[in-house]
């Protein structure tokens, strides 16, 4: 080690004239590994390449066996796997990729994590500082490209800054509304030597989002709760992200008040699906009772949801008679789509705790007779049984397949992830979650290809759990390369593919809004999924009759390893109920509309 070459030599000479090298002096690459260890990282999802090689060089040397690296087969898969890990554990997911294409391939994952508030720390290699801007081999403006799809990003130009930036990155990714961050480290900065700092050595982070709610606002909300005649809790992913305590407090509050509760697709599990006040998911493919209750309520208490267009439907007709309170940790989510009457910037758990405390200290008052009326009305909506469907004895209905999957796996240590499309909505409708973090899906960005890698990420976090990716065959193909990774990691992820040979949701929209012009939504050639599974080195199952379903599911569950389950379902089933984009909550379709109705759907311009 040539100390003289360093700008800021941290070496000191003791009285005997012996040179003592600061033990914190190390290469940038080693600093990265030390910082990750200090942050408690145990799994990294990554893919090596030229500009990140120094860090890969130090990974086995410095990690002391504390960090397990998962070699994905595509960088998009790395980010989704890290999302799967993060959402199943609540810890940040860590990704390591090279410059240029390594970063550009990661972008979809980062955008997905940004939308769904998933904490991700992505470390990317970059060409050496002296080559930045020269269109060097595998150079891309990683900071520029990733800026709008990260919470923050850093380009490190000095090795001495690495530790500080990595520790800050973990803070930013997790504080407030969680999200992805990117650290771009040029290769020469990885190789040069600098000083490592532990997280404790750092000054207090300036970024400190508000988590404690204003007391007077919570008192106002309690006053509203005491007199509400038709209240509803509208909950979302913010409750899940806040932690198990938030879910526990929500359940306690809901059960004590007797108010009905619904949730977005992101929040499923934050209130138990077996709870008696559960109205099921709301939104475009949510339940009749949840959507009608949202429309007719007089007090809406939004906890950690963001009034997404998939939830609100037509804004001018959204819940017209209600007072709305919105509890969110992200101030920019408040009054963005819907103007609310009470804005409460807070962490969900802290807000729910204070709410429960104030409501209790004021004597746990509520308008019970009005609530009884409200539940009577809700009971009538429940009677509609909006998720019912026509059974078929010869062909498998996708809903039936999921009902059987639910029946045969309920009570197991089970985690579900999905791809994007009809199967995703059916899974949200037919599978039930009594705890948070048991369900995840690409909600905001709607990323086809999320399921396979995220199932891998979940399995890495929970090696002994049952992890099932409920998939459509089209989405599943988008990131199927990660099955190789699953084999390498001996991750027994189950791929439950509802195969209708169509891009099902696209087909459904074409049926409803584009005069049945099925342009490019049919897959004329698909692989033999059983042979494909065998080629990867594990088990494939293919069935097409309802009476084969139970045995096949049990076979899948009993197999010690990954399984591709090719479930051939009816091809033209539509996902209902449905609020067509631009309709109001009380204008749901329970099944395919007749032609007159669908021609009225002039909102085909909406997405």
């Amino acid at each position, binding site marked *: 080690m040539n100390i003289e070459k360093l700008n800021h030599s941290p070496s000191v000479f003791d009285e005997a004239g012996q040179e003592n090298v600061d033990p914190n002096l190390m290469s940038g690459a080693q600093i990265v590994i030390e910082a990750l260890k200090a942050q408690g990282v145990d799994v990294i999802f990554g893919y090596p390449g030229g500009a990140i090689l120094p860090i890969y060089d130090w990974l086995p040397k410095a990690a002391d066996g504390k960090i397990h690296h998962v070699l994905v087969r595509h960088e998009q898969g790395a980010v989704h796997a890290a999302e799967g890990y993060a959402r199943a554990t609540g810890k940040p997911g860590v990704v390591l990729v090279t410059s240029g294409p390594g970063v550009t391939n990661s972008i979809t994952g980062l955008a997905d994590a940004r939308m769904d508030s998933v904490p991700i720390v992505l470390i990317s290699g970059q060409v050496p500082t002296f080559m930045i801007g020269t269109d060097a081999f595998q150079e891309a403006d990683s900071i520029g490209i990733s800026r709008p799809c990260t919470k923050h990003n850093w380009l490190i130009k000095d090795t001495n800054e690495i530790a500080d930036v990595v520790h800050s990155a973990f803070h930013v990714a997790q504080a407030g509304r969680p999200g992805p961050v990117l650290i771009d480290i040029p290769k020469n900065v990885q190789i040069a030597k600098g000083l490592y700092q532990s997280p404790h050595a750092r000054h207090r982070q300036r970024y400190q989002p508000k988590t404690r709610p204003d007391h007077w606002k919570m008192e106002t909300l309690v006053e509203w709760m005491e007199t509400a005649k038709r209240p509803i809790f509208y909950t979302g992913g913010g409750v899940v992200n806040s932690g198990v305590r938030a879910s526990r407090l929500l359940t306690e509050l809901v059960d004590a008040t007797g108010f009905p509760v619904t949730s977005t697709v992101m929040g499923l599990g934050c209130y138990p699906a077996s709870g008696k006040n559960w109205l099921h998911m709301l939104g475009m493919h949510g339940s009749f009772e949840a959507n009608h209750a949202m429309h007719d309520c007089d007090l809406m208490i939004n906890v950690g949801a963001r009034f997404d267009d998939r939830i609100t439907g037509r804004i001018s007709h959204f819940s017209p008679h209600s007072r709305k309170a919105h509890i969110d940790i992200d101030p*920019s989510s408040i009054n*963005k789509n819907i103007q609310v009457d009470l804005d409460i910037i807070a962490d969900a758990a802290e807000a729910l705790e204070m709410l429960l405390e104030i409501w209790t200290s004021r004597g746990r008052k509520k308008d019970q007779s009005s609530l009884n009326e409200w539940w009577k009305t809700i009971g009538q909506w429940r009677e509609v049984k909006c998720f019912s469907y026509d059974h078929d004895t010869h062909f498998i209905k996708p809903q039936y397949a999921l009902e059987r999957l639910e029946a045969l796996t309920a009570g197991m240590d089970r985690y579900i992830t999905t791809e994007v499309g009809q199967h995703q909505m059916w899974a949200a409708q037919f599978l039930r979650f009594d705890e948070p973090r048991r369900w995840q899906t690409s909600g905001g960005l709607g990323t086809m290809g999320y399921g396979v890698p995220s199932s891998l990420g979940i399995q890495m976090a929970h090696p002994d759990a049952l992890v099932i990716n409920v998939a459509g065959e089209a989405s599943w193909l988008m990131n199927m390369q990660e099955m190789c990774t699953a084999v390498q990691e001996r991750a027994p992820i189950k791929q439950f593919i509802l195969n209708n040979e169509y891009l099902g949701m696209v087909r459904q929209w074409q049926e409803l809004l584009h005069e049945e012009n099925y342009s490019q939504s049919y897959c004329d050639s698909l692989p033999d999924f059983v042979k494909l599974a065998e080629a990867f080195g594990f088990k494939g199952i293919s069935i097409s009759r309802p009476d084969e379903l139970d045995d096949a599911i049990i076979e899948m569950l009993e197999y010690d390893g990954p399984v591709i389950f090719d479930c051939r379902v009816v091809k033209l089933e539509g996902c209902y109920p449905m609020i067509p984009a631009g309709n109001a909550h009380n204008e749901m379709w329970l099944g395919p509309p007749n032609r007159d109705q669908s021609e009225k759907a002039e909102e085909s311009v909406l997405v």
Partner: protein
Amino acid sequence: MSKLNLSKGASRRSAYDLRKSRSSNAEPHTLSILVDNEAGVLARIVGLFAGRGFNIESLTVTEVDHTGHLSRITVVSTASDDVIQQIRAQVETVIPVHEIVDLTKDGHSIERELALFLVDEEQISRTQAQELAESFGARLIDTKTNHIIIEKSGTSDEIDELFDRLRSAGLKEISRTGVVGLSLTT
């Protein structure tokens, strides 16, 4: 765009919403944003405005604290109050942002802009230019050449007035800094 004929629908608040009914109460707001002066910070702010379809009418940025490395970005954006509220909330999510103040709404403030006008010396004499400048509270810059350059600082409206006057008096070129402002509310 009116062909879209969107009489109803979602995303009422998108700034890219080109339907007629909105933006009736849009007015210019001067937003003063204090940020860490680090590489790319301007791109973060400008990218946020562009990405979410917020309008930028003028923009100035420079480091105002050389020891603390803080820069002040002043943006004039024309939008309704609820969009401005959303802009403020979004800007506050940007990590290097210390604070954002709406100088138009948050109490008293002063706003100034500086403009340089190059006037054709064949259409107006130096003496005439001098008199004109003085009547607008502006001054001539001594360039040691034949060029006539008028420097004017004041409100944007005052600069617009001088611009209108000079347009018929041989104006060849104009450059404006955009608005800077100070809040008088402590």
